[in-house]
């Protein structure tokens, strides 16, 4: 060991007293690590392991998705018409952009570019907020239309008039929504001719929205947690704490953020682009 080891033992009591030169020079080096490099590598290894657990955590939902999409492809095809591809695409783009700024922020932290670091973190946060606002809009549409998971699934007329659904299938025949016999008759004729109209939800239709809300909801919670982490990084960045010997937290935050982004990149085609 270095000549520092004899003194390196005092850290438990707060570490700001008499210190070895390495700890004295690195205020963010925890007492139980010997060098900034050891601290960084431990953190990096830790965050990668954490990401592995995250992937396994989501894997259960992906597994359920795969099984029920295989068993009931109709339900998924029917259900996805109610998702707005445009909004989904907007969300995908903002997340990809935010991944870029997150990665850029790591570089800024390493090079002590304080201003650029703050700008990049702020852009990342704005992108994340955009994502959440769009998510909120999508969710509230579905809430109003009664497109809810499980036993709360009770589509109202609003569901058939949702722009995403109408755009794919055209408006429902006149009188159908009011339950007039001629409207229903017209609709039935259209269906027998192979038109993609499917006004009655297929059996177990609720399951699509169960899986949709579970997957996007869990992902949304991760985005919110990520925003919290980025706000924390912003505070640390404003205090100018980062530099070549201490940029680990930004790096870990960015890695987590990339994973959240990556999960969305899978969710988007799996839920929105079924056709």
């Amino acid at each position, binding site marked *: *060991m270095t000549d520092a*080891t*004899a003194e*390196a*033992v*005092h*850290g*438990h*009591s707060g570490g700001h007293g008499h210190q070895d030169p390495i700890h004295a020079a690195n205020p963010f080096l*925890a*007492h*139980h690590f010997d060098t900034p490099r*050891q601290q960084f*590598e*431990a953190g990096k*290894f*830790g965050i990668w*392991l*954490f990401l*592995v*657990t*995250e992937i*396994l*955590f*989501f*894997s*259960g*939902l992906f*597994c*359920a998705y795969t*099984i*029920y999409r295989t068993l*009931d492809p109709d339900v998924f095809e029917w259900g996805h018409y109610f998702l707005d591809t445009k909004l989904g695409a907007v969300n995908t783009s903002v997340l990809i952009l935010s991944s870029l700024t997150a990665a850029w922020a790591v570089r800024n932290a390493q090079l002590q570019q304080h201003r650029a670091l703050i700008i990049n973190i702020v852009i990342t946060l704005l992108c994340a907020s955009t994502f959440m606002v769009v998510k909120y809009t999508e969710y509230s549409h579905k809430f109003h239309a009664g497109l*809810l*998971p*499980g*036993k*709360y699934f009770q589509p109202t007329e609003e569901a058939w008039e949702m722009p995403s659904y109408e755009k794919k299938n055209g408006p429902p025949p006149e009188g159908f929504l009011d339950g007039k016999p001629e409207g229903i008759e017209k609709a039935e004729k259209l269906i027998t001719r192979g038109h993609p109209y499917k006004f009655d939800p297929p*059996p*177990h239709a*609720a*399951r699509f929205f*169960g*899986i949709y809300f*579970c997957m996007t909801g*869990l992902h949304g919670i991760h985005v919110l947690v990520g925003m919290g982490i980025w706000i924390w990084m912003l505070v640390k960045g404003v205090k100018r704490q980062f530099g070549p010997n201490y940029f680990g937290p930004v790096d870990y935050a960015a890695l987590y953020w990339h994973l959240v982004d990556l999960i969305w990149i899978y969710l988007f085609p799996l839920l929105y682009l079924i056709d």
Partner: protein
Amino acid sequence: MASTTTTADVAPPGAHGADDNYLTHEKGIASWLLTLDHKRIGIMYFCCVISAFALGGFFALMIRTELWAPGRTIVDADTYNQLFTLHGAVMVFLVIVPGIPAALGNFVLPLHLGAKDVAFPKLNLMSWYMWITGALFLISSLIVSAADTGWTFYTPYSTTTPTAVIPALAGVFVLGFSSIFTGLNFIVTIHKMRAPGLTWFRLPLFVWGLYSTAIMQVLATPVLGITLLMLIVERAFGIGIFDPALGGDPVLFQHFFWFYSHPAVYIMVVPAFGVISEIIPVFSRKRLFGYSFIALSSVAIAILSFLVWGHHMFVSGQSVLAGSIFSAITFLIAIPTAIKVLNWISTMYKGSIHLDTPMLYALMFLWVFTIGGLTGLFLSTMSTDVHLHDTYFVVAHFHYVMMGGAITAFFGGLHYWWPKMWGRMYNETTGRWGALAVFIGLNLTFFPQFIMGSRGMPRRYYNYIPEFQPFHQASTIGAFILGMGFLVTTVSLIRSLLKKPDAPQNPWGANTLEWTIPSPPAYYNFDKIPHVVEGPYEYADWEYDDKIGGYVRKGHQEAT
């Protein structure tokens, strides 16, 4: 392994008095609740785990008392269902899973590695708080209306029973994350915090055990997390993933559940292997036989554990082909397990065996764990499992493994490290009597259950035909002897805290790093970071010194 020029004879630096150790360094309840010291967190885990063990044990005695006679004895059938559910959930999630890794492991791991702490001390404290949160959720369900699903939460019953399943699920969910973060912390610690010279094959085998365990904790527990979350959502909203009434698949739940819970039984028992690997060579005064085989067999068990979950579903409509494959892989696990047992026995061969309490627990472990392991083969064979499935044979099998494996190793390790934890020697006589009672109680409780099970007594039943009564009564008597054994042990350990003698630095003549520092260790563990030059099971250098009642390194005066 610390035969270095720097560690053996260094007195604490002048800034710290002779009485300054991790227990006395800071005072007050807040210094414990906000501590980042791995030793104190280990002690806090230990206190909580022991309390949970007492609670789970109380439920067990209630169950056994109820089964003294057919029909109602002390509680009604619904309460009985809640009792066995809570017994299982408390013992599995609050006691055995965190027991050895979080309580003993937290205390010992950094000492074994020559490190000042685990890699992430704050995360470590957070894991403890998550344990507390999870425990409160789980126990709060008791107050509302305790779950009666069994600890496995099988659907569709768990989605339809009126009892408070959601708090119990939430509790287990949080406990799972506590376990994940402990595992993650340990993996990083073992990779990045080893002292200079401490190569992978100089690590004590307890560290290998914790490492294999941590891999399973990190890779299996998230799947349990999402499964429980889906079950909570299923119960709250009826999303139709697991509930057959809504078109869901209850067997899917079983797949998800056992994908975690089979590795989980190894999460429970692999750290116990580590403890036994520490105890046996020390008390045989002989280098461990087959070090690398024992080390790598833990890793082999960790890998295989992910491929055997289907053996819980031989009768759940799984195809015969899938069943055969799962059955074959399950047999494979017997190989690394047998490697361990045979190596431990070879270590004792021609050793100079000291029958101190930790060694008694280790010998007990060999006996009962071997029975538990071998009866597992009956259950992994499809044709016999169809007959034995869901009978008391299964109950006896996993109690021999969990109770006889994990718990006896936990108590063995507890006695072994007790002098290091508290700086006090326990009373050897009461320790041995406690161990004897545990051994007799354990066999008397669970051996009759093998017989009952093979004759068709189903598990979890409230009532039974009179022919089974003698077996049930023997089992109940055994359970009370077992309880007495643990009571004697606990009282003996607590009394040791109140009276002398103080423990020497190395009472057992072990050669791992924690025995090269004072008992109890200083707040900062090591005065100087040790340089390791040899393996952990070399005893030639240590000789017994009558004056201090412990071992000293030849040619050195004891520092304290």
